[in-house]
């Protein structure tokens, strides 16, 4: 049984290295081609500049401008095509084996993301989610806990106002509960959120839940449908673990507990899990960053002790 931990060096040297070298060759070849077209465009650009200064005859300017921009454009297109060619290979040949090395029952859908319905159900979005974007949907199992996460963007309204961009994680919770509890960053949440949740019908009789941990209270605002059940979910040890996880992620993390599942929203603007074009792909540190992201998002299972199932 895999638990999300493993020796990175073994993964890198024995499983990924050969594939990375092959991909790196393809990347280099794409870049070389792009650079070649760029350099071909340079003499035309020089002629273009010379003609524009000395003899700005439209036909001559056009004749020299056309190849300049054609080769520059082709250079850019080559870069784009290299990226388009490398992305699925990188995800299938590098990220998927990485996930399979770390976890059991891995399902990786690079072009999928969390659904609109799931985002809405999580209660973590400040406005109604009308459409979503994103990629890199992962579903796997860590011990007894099934976990899903993906890079997701949520949009509101006809003008597609972005209300969230980052990682959404959802995992089976280790206690059964009937009501809903939302734990939001205190700094960016007002009491108005409670009224909105009640008014929209997403929560029933939601109240602010005051908890006894002063550090937790300082960091989070808890809104729950039941004072007792919210405390049943948020045991003192879980509150401490949530604080530790929030500090580890170092972002304004939100949590919710709905229908026996835990939802976590971590706002991140970086586009993760993508190959890079202008730097070596086979760089160990670059691969480690991807490895660490996977570990960080799935560490929630270990960090919140979701595999302890003495209540179910």
């Amino acid at each position, binding site marked *: 049984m895999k638990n999300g931990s493993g020796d990175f060096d073994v993964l890198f040297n024995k499983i990924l290295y050969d594939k990375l070298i092959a991909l790196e060759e393809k990347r280099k070849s794409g870049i070389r081609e792009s650079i070649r077209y760029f350099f071909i465009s340079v003499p035309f650009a020089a002629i273009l500049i010379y003609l524009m200064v000395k003899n700005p005859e439209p036909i001559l300017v056009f004749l020299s401008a056309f190849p300049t921009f054609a080769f520059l454009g082709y250079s850019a297109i080559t870069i784009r095509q290299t990226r388009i060619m490398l992305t699925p290979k990188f995800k299938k040949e590098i990220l998927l084996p990485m996930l399979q090395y770390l976890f059991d029952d891995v399902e990786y859908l690079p072009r999928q993301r969390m659904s609109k319905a799931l985002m809405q159900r999580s209660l973590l979005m400040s406005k109604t989610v009308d459409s979503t974007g994103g990629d890199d949907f992962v579903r796997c199992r860590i011990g007894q806990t099934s976990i899903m996460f993906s890079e997701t963007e949520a949009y509101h309204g006809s003008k597609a106002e972005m209300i969230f961009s980052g990682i959404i994680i959802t995992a089976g919770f280790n*206690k*059964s509960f009937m009501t809903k509890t939302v734990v939001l960053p205190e700094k960016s949440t007002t009491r108005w959120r409670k009224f909105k949740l009640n008014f929209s019908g997403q929560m029933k009789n939601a109240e602010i839940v*005051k*908890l*006894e941990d002063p550090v937790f209270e300082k960091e989070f605002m808890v809104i729950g449908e039941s*004072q*007792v*059940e*919210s*405390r*049943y979910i948020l*045991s003192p040890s879980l509150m401490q673990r949530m604080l530790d996880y929030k500090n580890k992620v170092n972002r304004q993390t939100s949590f919710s507990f709905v229908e026996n599942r835990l939802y976590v929203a971590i706002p991140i603007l970086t586009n993760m899990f993508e190959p890079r074009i202008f730097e070596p792909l086979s760089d160990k540190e670059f691969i480690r960053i991807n490895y660490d992201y996977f570990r960080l998002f799935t560490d929630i299972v270990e960090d919140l002790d979701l595999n302890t*199932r*003495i*209540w*179910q």
Partner: protein
Amino acid sequence: MYTDYIIYGIVGLVILIIIGLYNTIIRKRNEVNNAFASIDAMLKKRYDLLPNLVELVKQYMAHEKTVFVEITKLRSQVSSEIPSDEKLEKYNALQKHADRLLLNVENYPDLKASANFLHLQASWNSTEEQISASRRYFNAAVTDYNNHIQMFPYNILADLLKFSPQSVFEISNNERQNINAKELFNS
């Protein structure tokens, strides 16, 4: 003429403030009662699990007969008519016996592996955690109520109408002491 209106206005405002303060105190007190009722409900839930536990465990632990007799006796003494304090005492006594049974399960591998027992143990753990959550809710409600009746301007009304502070749930000195595992296993 205008002076009269101003006086009526001030009196009306004062009455409204008093009503507001009074209602807040009542709401806080009701929340305390509600929180206490939730502890009672959770204790009852655990109490209802006891017959299942006894029935299941009885098959395996024949020589723990005295514990079963004690549990049955205590259960028969708990009824809705007895005062809350007494009821809590009985619940706690029942808890001690049930804990002893659960602890002895270690000596009965067949019972420990039984699916029914595992399910019952999970329900028991869940109820325990819910009782703990109810107590935390009660303590939060009591603290909030006490803060209100001791703070200005609520304290004026609270003193006049004899609203007294309530005590939070505290564990007994026995429970506060470190657990002596050796003693537990020998009991």
